[in-house]
């Protein structure tokens, strides 16, 4: 379990929940921040914050405080242990690529 700010640039995760005031949460959900949505950290603003996230085909910028309150499950979090972590690090690139391809495919067939 982690939050949106833990994502490295280019990394994709599955959204779990939003821990924000009702009005903000409602607003974000209408922008596509709903449970099970796939969120990708796209890029940081030149000053390092806010960060642009891709969700549901849209690009939305969030400041750190807001992104911190959005819980996600990293799609690469399955491996455990030091060796596995090392392995997953090696596999990260390939996996990220495959992941985006899968999502693109899923998005395309949806």
């Amino acid at each position, binding site marked *: 379990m982690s939050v949106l700010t833990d994502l490295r640039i280019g990394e994709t995760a599955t959204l779990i929940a939003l821990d*924000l005031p009702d*009005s*903000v*949460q*409602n*607003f*974000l*959900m*209408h*922008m*596509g921040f*709903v*449970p099970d949505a796939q969120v990708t950290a*796209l*890029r*940081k*603003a*030149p*000053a*390092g*914050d*806010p960060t*642009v996230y*891709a969700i*549901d*085909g*849209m*690009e*939305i*910028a*969030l*400041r750190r*405080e*807001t992104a911190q309150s959005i819980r996600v499950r990293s799609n690469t979090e399955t491996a455990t242990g030091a060796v596995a972590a090392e392995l997953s690090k090696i596999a990260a690139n390939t996996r990220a690529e495959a992941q985006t391809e899968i999502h*693109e495919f899923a*998005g*395309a*067939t*949806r």
Partner: protein
Amino acid sequence: MNACCETPAFEPPQAPRSGGLSTVVLIGPPNSGKSTLFNRLTGLRQKVANYPGVTVEQRMGLMSGVGRDDLTLIDLPGVYSLTPYSEDARVSVDVLKGKMPGTPKPDAVLLVLDSLHLTRQLMLAAPVLALGLPTLILLNMSDVMESRGGKIDTLKLAKELGAPVAQISAVHGSGLDAVPLFLNQCALPPAAKKAEQLLTLPVLGNAASTHRWAAQVSRRTGYKAPLSAENSRKLDSILLHRIWGPLLFLAVVIGVFEVVFSIGQPLSDGFGDVLAKMGALVRPLLPAGWLQSLVIDGAWKGISSVLVFLPQILLLFLFIGILEDSGYLARAALIADRVMRTTGLNGKAFIPLLSAYACAVPAIMATRTIENKRDRFATILVTPFMTCSARLPVYMLLIAAFIPAKTFLHGFLGLQTIVMLGLYLAGFVAAMTTAWLLKSSILKSSEAPFILELPQYRMPTLRSLGMRLVDRAKVFMRQAGTVILSVTLGLWLLAHIPPVPGPGGHYTAPELADSVIGKMGHFIEPAIAPLGFNWKVGIGLISSVLAREVMVSTMGTLYGADPETQTMHLQNALHTDMTLGGAVALMIFFAFAMQCTSTMAVVRRETNSWKWPAVQFAWMLTLAWTGAFAVNHIITALFG
């Protein structure tokens, strides 16, 4: 299958209108193209741009663009849901539900959705369809969607939603035939209806269930999302790059001003010559004497001294238009967010502040997108510091008169451009400092979330840019023909009374210094002399409280009325009558002072009290006086 023919249950029975239809409303998520469509359907020119939140209040127009003069169309601010989140969204919801006083209850709805992100946009369809009004769903930007490999089955979607669906492109005006067709169908008696299909809508108000419903609908109807805009991402990887991003931002700003000077100045000079020749042509047609003096030396000199700047202002607006329509503005907001948050201003304040470079009045209205009231007030209070286009004639006149046309970096950067940028920067710094003061004292609030949707880049269309320029030119000319003309005539009159007995018993105009206006000027001179301003400038400061560009016309009229400077070019006349210190101080004064009654009126309206505009006026005047005083003394000490 057609919900549009259903008579709304809450139709007031006492008003059986012919055809049963009189008001149609446009609704949709932000930046889905409602205003572009509104302009198409009405033939009007509502402001449009490529970022969310351009429209902040309802606008009405007759649908003459599709030959339906009998119908009123209402354009509304974009909303994501019918649970209002900010002031502008509340307007939309109230109008849609017929709760807005003074706005007719809508009889039919045109729901505009961006077909590039249909799944998410469909979330709005649920609460809108639940209103039970005849609704036509317009999938906008369908040309872009198809060119990127997206697909949509409109028949299936219409069946699923129980409402007609049409694909359109508001920018290119294609597919709009569906609108009059729909309106005709709405006018049919209910008997012509086909059997209604039961529409299952999600639990309203619950975003998660609405999203699930929208996802199901789009899956069942075979929606294939277009490939994400690779070009937008590629562009962003440069424009939002850590190093290149801010540098390009700076280069864009400097480039704009360089062009406004290097290309705009000769254009304005040429235009000025034409205006002067026109005056010279008319002069012999008028009898020599007071009428000639009033029309040529008074009114025409005053008005043309402002009109001269039209080419430069249009150039500036061309650039602002390109930046707004392309979608770059939202990126600029992202780059500048760091500065904004240091001051404590809401991240959403950036777009209103940027649009204040054109004019503070619409910018102050654009603050309605800011949800938090304290954040909104803070933004309203600092907005008039941003350099609006009405300051431009004042700056350009003084810069051309006093700042030498030196260039640096092999001619790429002019001293005049640097001074101009400095003035813009001074306004920005004053705005940020004031914001910081407000946000750390009387308008303190918890930090509001910054949520900004980055629109995809779009190529600005010539049509849209051309329309902006025509509108801008009209506003400028109207201002010249009303405010500036009346002030100029008033000034001329005050400069010519009381008449003094001349040779031969004829009464003639007094010396300018002895006229009523001259006495007024001399009366306030002690207050402004420390700033390096003479009494003529003082008159200009008073008259320009109406609008900043009145300063220039006032100078034109006063120096035109003075026999000593009558034949001179206004720049030269000023040059002989002011010091460099005074001139720069005058520019600083204009950078800070609140010289605009329209802005004060809109601040009063938006804050609903006279207190805020009064505080604002006093604070800006204090800053202007102090700043001008300091600058006058520093410049005089340095360059003497």
